[in-house]
């Protein structure tokens, strides 16, 4: 009894860590740090799955934790870092709204989630706490997507949403069947790769002409940047 209590506390700490990495995304100025925030987020996510795997000894959870670490924690961050480092222009995030406003909005979102989920949902998985955190992470990811200008920050926002979604899945139930998880992870991986291909193409088509600085193209650049 004593042991399981301790571990649920550990899980609460880890989920708070996941929330903090998402909040930190609001204030990060450089693209590299955004990718780093995502990496930490994914590591914490797989750690969160690993803890109940150790306590229950369920082999399926071990597989899920290692798959998450391999794709979200290692492969996708490496790929994103490569794309960011290829970029020769400014590595700034350039948000539409200021950091302070962005942080405030995130705070409001978290408050709404905690207020609306404070009762009424019984959870079979880890903890009620993880569920609130996961919904908050999904919403913050969405906020990042719509308030940032660069294509790569959009991708990072999308990936945060997907991490939040995985956390929701694990906190509502004790995980999906392995073959399903494999399918979903494969899809996420493919999606990121294709998005990466498009980012490179956008850079080719839009940046090379940016030097000529015609006004119509400038208009397009505000909506779409490599």
């Amino acid at each position, binding site marked *: 009894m004593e042991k399981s209590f301790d571990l649920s506390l550990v899980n609460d700490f880890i989920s708070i860590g996941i929330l903090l990495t998402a909040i930190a995304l609001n204030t990060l100025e450089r693209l590299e740090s955004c990718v780093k925030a995502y990496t930490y987020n994914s590591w914490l996510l797989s750690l969160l799955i690993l803890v109940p795997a150790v306590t229950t000894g369920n082999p399926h959870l071990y597989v899920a934790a290692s798959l998450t670490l391999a794709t979200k924690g290692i492969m996708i961050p490496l790929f994103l870092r490569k794309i960011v480092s290829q970029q020769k222009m400014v590595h700034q995030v350039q948000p539409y709204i200021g950091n302070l406003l962005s942080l405030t909005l995130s705070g409001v979102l978290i408050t709404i989630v905690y207020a609306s989920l404070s009762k009424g949902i019984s959870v079979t998985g880890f903890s009620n706490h993880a569920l609130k955190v996961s919904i908050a992470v*999904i919403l913050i990811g969405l906020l990042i997507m719509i308030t940032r200008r660069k294509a790569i920050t959009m991708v990072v926002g*999308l990936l945060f949403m997907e991490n939040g*979604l995985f956390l929701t899945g694990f906190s509502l*139930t004790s995980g999906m069947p392995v073959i*399903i998880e494999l399918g*979903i992870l494969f899809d996420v991986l493919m999606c990121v790769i294709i998005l990466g291909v*498009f980012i490179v193409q956008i850079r080719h088509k839009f940046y090379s002409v940016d030097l000529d600085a015609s006004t119509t193209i400038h208009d397009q650049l505000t909506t779409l940047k490599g």
Partner: protein
Amino acid sequence: MSGILLLLLIPIITAVLCYSSHNRKEAEYFSLIGIAVTAMVSIFLISASQSSPIFFFRGMFFIDALSAYILSIVILVSVAVAIYSVRYMGREFQEGLISIKELKDFYALLHLFIFTMLLAAVSNNIAIFWVAIESTTIVSSLLVGFYKDRESIEAAWKYIILCTVSLVFGLLGVFIIYYASSIVLVGEGTLNWTELREIAHDMNPKTVKLAFLFILVGYGAKAGFAPIHNWLPDAHSQAPTPVSALLSGVLIKCAFLGIIRFAIIGNECLGISYCGNLLMIFGLVSMGVASAFILVQNNFKRLLAYSSIEHIGIIAIGMGIGGFCGVYGSLLHMLNHAIVKPLLFFTTGEIKLKYHTTAIDKIKGAMVTLPIVGTVMLVAALAIAGAPPFNIFLSEFTILKAAVDGGNWVTFSLFIIFATIIFAGLLRNFGSMVFGRPNIDHDEQEKKQIVKNGNKIGIGIIVVMAVIMLVLGLHIPGFLDEMLKSSVKIIAGE
């Protein structure tokens, strides 16, 4: 039954063969033979599934009457598109718009795209269905951005981002349903649709409501419902014409299949009014938005894209009204739209090859420059606008009859108003393209044509589809009626 495995493997093998082929002829032959074999296997499976559903791999895949119906639509349009691609992409290759590598990539991606749609049609497991729909986004976004110019890359980017974000919410809906089932079954939940349907009565209604909302937003964006349709006109207008036909003809219906499956679970759990009303509202909003944009459109591919939004709205309205007539009309409308819309894309594709523009006001006298294609296009435009005696009129009439029978007078009158506006908009635009004095030098073009173009099979498929369209307007064959009735039985009960 390993037939399903075969059905899914053949398009992948075809894609690999097309990718590794050495020249244009080889790629085209691989593509045509591949689609022919796929069609044969699927006809065998569809006829086998009519008596009882076929299951495969622990019940994760299955073909019941409804999947068989969607499967036959997918196959019908895919065969037409594969044949037409030989003509259209061949012409673009001859004119030097695309390289041989791009041509091979096109065929490989086309067959992968068909594979993902087949996977969606035959999956019983709702999470596999999600994976399939997400894969359609990934593969088709590469096809949308195929020409790699600014507009198409922007359209592809918009498409993949919007659809992936909304599908994230769709997956949340899947998780919630899994959670609801795990409470009913105590412990391990289930993701198989057939099992979910059996336990739907015992699920918590509030949880199911929440899940259906997420599913509706998630798959609704992919199906092209109005407030979340923004990707659709861009993607449809930037993709190569055969791909536009596939996107509009079948992809949006595959996504709608997911909504139907969840609406069945929702109906069992909540009664028919909740899901039905939501579908009706989305349908009417889609029709309204489409009617506004169709009036002011000057790009014919975008015009056709907005028309797709209108028709997915009509399909949703029929499904929302429910009852035998509503569901029957809605399912029939899926098939009719899947025949007429690709036909319009093919004929306008011919016009694009001839006039080298997509602006409606720059095209005059298509009837004179392209007699067969121009005529078929005018007839198909009349059909898509809903004029009798064509097939679209028949299914729209069935849906309206269901609305009157059910006393849905608001839906009925809004439907009539929007359909009238769209009728006017479509005929004005297509009329100005077909009639009038040709504004390109006809004879000179003709000479070039004879030298370049020995391929008549593309025109052949246009004529064949036009014949199917005319026949379906006058008479519904017995086997189709049987398929429709057994699909209606699955959706609306006895």
